[in-house]
């Protein structure tokens, strides 16, 4: 397998970029939000802003699970890790996210038993391999990862696994979009809808955005061409005064979503009355908790969790950046105290965080659509 930098369909990309210019009203200022952190990463990586007209702003949304997790939840999870005979298992993305007293990795250096897993089922394996210890899986993510955690809990229950639990931080995308639309300092014209999250929930849950809020939304893939085509679809709707849900990513996203995944989630999880989001505050019915029938595997019920609340470092302006009020580089700490190597705020930790994406690609000068030799690639 070759590792090459090239854009496919260069002619089509050029044509689509031209179509975007044709559809753009020069008198109008467009603000489109890409909800998903994967799209944020792709937009910076491909330098898509360079091919868009100046009056189209892409606003980076809340769809980076690591970025929206409040710091207190990390400390809550780590407080469990501090108890004797507990193994704290989490995805690699979590390891460098700072809590008030350091990241999981720093806690590991101080003696906590912290392990990286790549799949929640690996945490089950870990529990079986360590019968004298308790394995707590620190679960995060939107609907993309929540079904996997649900299935893992079903297995743990079916096998009667006693030394395993989940500290559930799963969140749901729809209430976050609602909170953003309700935010008074937010003016958006349309949404680039999440790709892989939508493979699970499908397109139907977005219908209210079009029908009630009058905003177009296009579920979108991750290639440069996907993103540009979705922008064309949004601009067409805006030009025609329409608002509907469209699916640009039909080749992966079924309109109805993944029913087996939704069923597993529904069996294991229920909505929390409210949950705190970093940068967005408390949002009602925006996160998942483990149902009573799985209480035995719920770390929040099994352990005494302090329920820590920590305000972000005052100087870091993660909240404003998350809401699109500030661009990453406008934060006082950006590239100064806060860098991907030594992050202060969560947006700098994950490659899907807008600050890390901005930092990496502003400094590294990648191949972008505007400077790639489009004619030379196939």
């Amino acid at each position, binding site marked *: 397998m070759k590792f090459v930098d*090239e854009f496919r369909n260069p002619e089509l990309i050029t044509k689509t970029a031209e179509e975007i210019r044709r559809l753009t009203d020069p008198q109008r200022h467009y603000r489109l939000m890409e909800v998903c952190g994967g799209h944020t990463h792709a937009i910076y990586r491909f330098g898509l802003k360079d091919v868009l007209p100046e009056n189209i702003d892409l606003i980076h949304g809340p769809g980076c699970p690591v970025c929206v997790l409040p710091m207190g939840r990390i400390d809550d999870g780590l407080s469990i890790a501090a108890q004797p005979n507990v193994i704290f298992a989490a995805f690699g993305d979590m390891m460098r996210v700072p809590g008030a007293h350091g990241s999981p990795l720093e806690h590991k250096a101080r003696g906590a038993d912290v392990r990286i897993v*790549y799949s929640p089922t690996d945490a089950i394996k870990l529990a079986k391999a360590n019968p004298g210890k308790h394995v707590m899986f620190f679960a995060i993510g939107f609907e993309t990862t929540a079904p996997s955690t649900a299935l893992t809990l079903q297995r743990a229950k079916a096998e009667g696994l006693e030394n395993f639990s989940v500290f559930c931080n799963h969140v749901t995308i729809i209430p976050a979009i609602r909170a953003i639309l309700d935010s008074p300092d937010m003016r958006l014209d349309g949404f680039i809808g999440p790709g892989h999250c939508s493979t699970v929930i499908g397109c139907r849950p977005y219908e209210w955005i079009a029908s009630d809020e009058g905003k177009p939304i296009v579920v979108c893939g991750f*290639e440069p061409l996907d993103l540009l085509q979705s922008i064309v679809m949004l601009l067409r709707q805006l030009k025609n005064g329409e608002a509907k849900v469209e699916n640009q990513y039909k080749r992966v996203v*079924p309109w109805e979503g993944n029913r087996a995944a939704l069923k597993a989630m529904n069996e294991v999880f229920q909505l929390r009355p409210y949950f705190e989001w970093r940068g967005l505050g408390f949002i009602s019915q925006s996160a998942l908790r483990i149902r009573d029938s799985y209480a035995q595997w719920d770390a929040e019920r099994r352990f005494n969790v302090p329920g820590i609340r920590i305000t972000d470092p005052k100087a870091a302006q993660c909240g404003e950046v998350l809401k699109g009020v500030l661009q990453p580089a406008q934060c006082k700490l950006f590239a100064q105290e806060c860098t991907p190597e030594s992050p202060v705020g969560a947006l700098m930790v994950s490659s899907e965080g807008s600050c890390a994406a901005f930092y990496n690609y502003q400094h590294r000068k990648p191949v972008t659509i505007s400077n790639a030799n489009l004619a030379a690639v196939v």
Partner: protein
Amino acid sequence: MCLAIPGKIIEITSDATRSALVDVMGVRRKVDLGLLQEDKPKTGDWVLIHVGFAMSKISEEEALDQMHTLQMLGESEAAIEEVRGYGLEDLKEKRIT
């Protein structure tokens, strides 16, 4: 965590535990098929994998596109690392450390 990794099903290893052996860019690992029970994949099918679970069936063309996207995003090595990390085999074969 949010990577969608394309893999080709080489073998349905167990119907009971709903797992399959997949090939991801030359790396072979077991993945879980539990989330595709309504539209069961078979040997030779391509799937998109998230955190060790096959999440959707895709065409071969789409799978190649996805690999291309991962490469362009500079994440194909992270994807390989993730797949290598799946400890879904028996512990005898691969100890989780």
